[in-house]
């Protein structure tokens, strides 16, 4: 083949033509059709080097309907929400917010690569839903124990450092009207469409 390697062809039947519609569904999401594939997002991203597909590629893949590949990509979990791409996008596409949408879809569908982030998000959610505020000490413990108890040992010096500097209190504060907050949370989850 004259030194040109055969590329894997993704057949049309493997494409999900509704994927783009799902993105259109989020507020401002329809602007994705204005993407000119300029690559400003990928060039601005501080973590594109750690991604499998750069943001520009992800956007081309969304438009091509490569739903599985996008939602299984480590790219969406590498986005740190720093908004640099969104700030610089000449087409004013809400890139960071679309990344959030992809994260929500991957968590909802229990995609393999979303495990760590989902554990962090869920642990956070549980604490806040119970107390109304985040308690960082509990959050760190939950995330470490829930994802990687052995790897957590390497985090021990960080935790001890914060603790001895009075920056990890044993107990978290709870808000007074936690019942009211829980009602808001329950309703928002119900109508949130996620």
């Amino acid at each position: 083949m004259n030194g040109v390697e055969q590329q894997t062809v993704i057949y049309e039947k493997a494409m999900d033509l509704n994927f783009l519609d799902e993105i259109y569904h989020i507020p401002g999401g329809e602007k994705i059709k204005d993407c000119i594939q300029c690559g400003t997002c990928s060039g601005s991203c501080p973590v594109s080097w750690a991604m499998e597909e750069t943001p520009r590629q992800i956007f081309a893949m969304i438009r091509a309907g490569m739903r599985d590949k996008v939602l299984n990509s480590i790219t969406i979990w590498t986005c740190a929400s720093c908004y640099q791409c969104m700030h610089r996008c000449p087409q004013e596409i809400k890139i960071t917010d679309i990344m959030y949408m992809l994260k929500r879809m991957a968590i909802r569908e229990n995609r393999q690569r979303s495990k760590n982030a989902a554990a962090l998000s869920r642990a956070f959610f549980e604490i806040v839903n119970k107390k109304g505020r985040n308690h960082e000490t509990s959050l760190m413990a939950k995330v470490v124990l829930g994802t990687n108890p052995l790897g957590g040992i390497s985090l021990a010096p960080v935790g001890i450092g914060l603790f001895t500097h009075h920056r990890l209190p044993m107990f978290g504060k709870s808000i007074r009207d936690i019942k009211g907050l829980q009602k808001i949370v329950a309703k928002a989850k119900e109508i949130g469409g996620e």
Partner: protein
Amino acid sequence: MRYAYYPGCSLEATGRPYEESVAAVAKALGIELVELEDWNCCGATAYMSINEVLSFSLSARNLCQAKKIGDTLVTACSACYTNLRKTEAYLADFPEIKGKVDTALAEAGLRYDGGVTTKHFLQTVVQDVGLDRIKSLVKHPLTGLRVAPYYGCQIARPYGIEDDADNPTMMDKLLTAIGATPTYYPLKTMCCGGSLMGIRKEVALRLCRNLLLCAQQYDAQCIVVTCPLCQMNLDAFQSSVNKTYGTNFNLPILYFTQLMGVSFGLDSKGLGLNDCIVPATGVTAKYA
């Protein structure tokens, strides 16, 4: 000057030195910060990954509490700042979201129809109090102290602090006003990794290493920050960076409020200076 004040969860724990120094500096400047009654978590970046309406509803509840106090809400955490500003923008721009948030808030008998402007404490200090007044309070100018001004991402964009999003200078001017020397710091709005430290640690460590290296290259003696998450990543994980990259960084990470407090001659205990993991008193002691 009287403002509604939202501390946010980090300022009760890892960011406690920030909370203390904000309070001390506010008092010295004659700013009255009235803490929101029964405030809740802003949802940080985690809630946005679970449910967008829920995230906006949490911030909207805080905005309701703020409105009882006044029309300007001050927060010192960049992540809280972004969430509050983003909620304002989405509620104003997307009636569909506003409708859903209204329905959720109604469950607790609340409603938010706008009217609160959120400001970062850096803005309050520089724009509302002003550099002249700050200069007049300086007792120990930080002469000769070279400081890397690190703004981080969420204070600069997408709902920035009325400054140049790519090259903000508000904090540079503040540092100059208290006698310090802001160094050239081209990574001033580059991301520290934020919550990636809990998701893809190796990626976040590299971002932190770049930030520390850049500060060192321009001979900064410390880095000054505006966000509790930036502070924690750069301070508490500095030894992890050193271990991973074989580096030898020993750069104190201070809040701008801590340096202001030092220059005002405030008691160092009330500024949380002893609670930096990388000891900070080495660079601040000579000015106290």
